[in-house]
């Protein structure tokens, strides 16, 4: 049995058929997972200024760039193992660099709220065994974490849910479009207007407090009645919801307070984004957007915290998010590990990438790698190398090394980079 690094469900029931050190077939994996495990078509090769070199030279050049930079930034890490993430954090410390990951423009705020224990949360095994009301909010699990409904939430039999979806479970979708997940939640799809989540949350909170909601009262009261009856409810919060309410996380906390039998779980796409958030939180008390300065750690938004035990000062500021750093053109070198900002960020923002040296560590050729100063190929974690990762609910999962590879792991590369410094 192998573990799939395709998304943060980290399915650990995958059978693989290996032929000539290649994954020929996967069993149990979804399309996304199978494609990840079989590997990409274009493997990355080491290069400097887009000219081929050996890995050692590429590492040396990367070290040189980072060493002379006045304001370097490390970014990515959501597709890296926990071991590599810890190395990345050490590297940022050593360089006095900014470090941020994709959660910064994804689920970071929600995950931070969970780490701060403002929400009740639970494990996916609890969902399988006990959950009777499942709310997919701004989340199309069927397309993003494709085995979520079949392995854990709606379809399986569970200890107290013997009759699964036919009788024992209700799935609800709240979304701006009738997603594939919403289609499964037959009769319980609540369509909201773009950016309408806030209004919907407030109306639902009113309904749960016995007031008549100001907005679509009939539908909201009907949904409130379903939620109230839940014995073990879960809100699977997707990026649709997080993008819509952003820093207004408190209204979701207030709603959760009204739902004493409910748990909140972040829906996470990248396989180890939550791992990065955990590792950085352990080290600094923040999940992303951190700047190390000498012995001090700065974070966003502006807030100073003394942690004398570690002898560090933490300063909070949003300007350390990848997005603001690029917009303000405040960084002069960027190391990207396992991410493709050129593809995933607004184009209006990534212009600055063209004017600074970028170092790209990735198993595959990406849009970003095609314009970077240095490329360093690594092994595909969870396929060509093992390690650990954190599932979307916080459970640590071992990754499997399935096939042999000559490519160094990202952990190894970051260690070598540190040595070269």
């Amino acid at each position: 049995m192998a573990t799939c690094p395709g998304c943060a469900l980290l399915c650990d029931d995958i059978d693989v058929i290996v032929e000539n050190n290649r994954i020929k077939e996967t069993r149990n994996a979804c399309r996304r997972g199978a494609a990840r495990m079989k590997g990409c078509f274009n493997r990355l090769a080491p290069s400097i200024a887009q000219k081929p070199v050996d890995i050692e030279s590429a590492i040396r050049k990367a070290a040189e760039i980072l060493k002379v930079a006045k304001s370097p930034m490390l970014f990515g890490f959501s597709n890296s193992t926990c071991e590599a993430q810890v190395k990345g954090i050490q590297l940022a410390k050593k360089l006095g660099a900014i470090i941020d990951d994709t959660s910064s423009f994804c689920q970071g705020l929600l995950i931070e709220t969970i780490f701060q224990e403002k929400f009740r949360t639970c494990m996916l095994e609890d969902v399988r065994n006990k959950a009777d009301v499942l709310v997919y909010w701004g989340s199309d699990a069927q397309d993003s974490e494709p085995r979520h409904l079949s392995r854990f939430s709606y379809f399986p039999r569970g200890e107290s849910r013997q009759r699964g979806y036919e009788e024992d479970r209700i799935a609800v979708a709240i979304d701006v479009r009738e997603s594939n997940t919403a289609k499964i939640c037959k009769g319980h799809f609540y369509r909201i207007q773009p950016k309408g989540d806030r209004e919907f949350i407030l109306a639902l909170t009113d309904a749960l407090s016995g007031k008549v909601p100001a907005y679509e009262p009939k539908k909201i009261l009907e949904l409130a009645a379903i939620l109230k009856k839940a014995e073990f409810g879960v809100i699977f919060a997707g990026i649709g919801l997080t993008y819509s309410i952003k820093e207004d996380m408190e209204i979701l906390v207030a709603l959760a307070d009204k739902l004493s039998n409910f748990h909140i779980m972040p829906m996470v796409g990248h396989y180890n984004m939550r791992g990065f958030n955990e590792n950085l939180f352990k080290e600094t008390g923040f999940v992303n957007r951190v700047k190390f300065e000498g012995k001090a750690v700065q974070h966003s938004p502006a807030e100073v915290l003394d942690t004398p035990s570690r002898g560090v000062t933490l300063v909070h500021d949003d300007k350390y998010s990848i997005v603001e750093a690029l917009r303000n053109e405040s960084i002069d070198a960027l190391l990207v590990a396992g991410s493709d900002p050129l593809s995933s960020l607004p184009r209006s923002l990534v212009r600055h990438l063209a004017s600074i040296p970028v170092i790209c560590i990735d198993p595959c050729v990406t849009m970003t790698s095609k314009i970077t100063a240095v490329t360093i190929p690594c092994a595909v974690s969870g396929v060509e190398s093992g390690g650990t990762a954190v599932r979307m609910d916080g459970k640590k999962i071992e990754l499997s090394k399935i096939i042999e590879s000559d490519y160094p792991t990202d952990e190894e590369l970051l260690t070598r980079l540190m040595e070269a410094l």
Partner: protein
Amino acid sequence: MGLDVGKFMKNPEYEIKIITYRDIFQVEALERDRFGKDYEKLSAFIGMSKNDMAKMGLKSGDRVKVANNNGSIVVEVRESRRDEPGGVAFMVNSPWSNVLVSDDMGGKGIPEFKNITAKISLVKEEITSLESLMEYFRKLKQV
């Protein structure tokens, strides 16, 4: 009675709201080969409700220019398979949709990936290729 200016223009422009979403088949294509034809086909299109398309005189397979202050792309328009109420168009999250996303996020670090306003009009130009999106960056590098 006011003049319907749109009637006399060759290719009228309409303002639309675009919501982005994820699609498993596109994600699969991305994993395999982000520079491949499949990924482009599954990304470079805009889905609209039947009603909206009729209102704008568009039919499935037409090429449209979708543009705003942030950038401009040419994609294929396809009728949404769902019975959508209209008023909103849909694009799969991709480098194409990201051309249209604003960099103004009030200093909070989260762009409006899922809430785009743009103008749409029928065109004859070729669909924007990933290579041409890359070309944009290469040119920036040379400046």
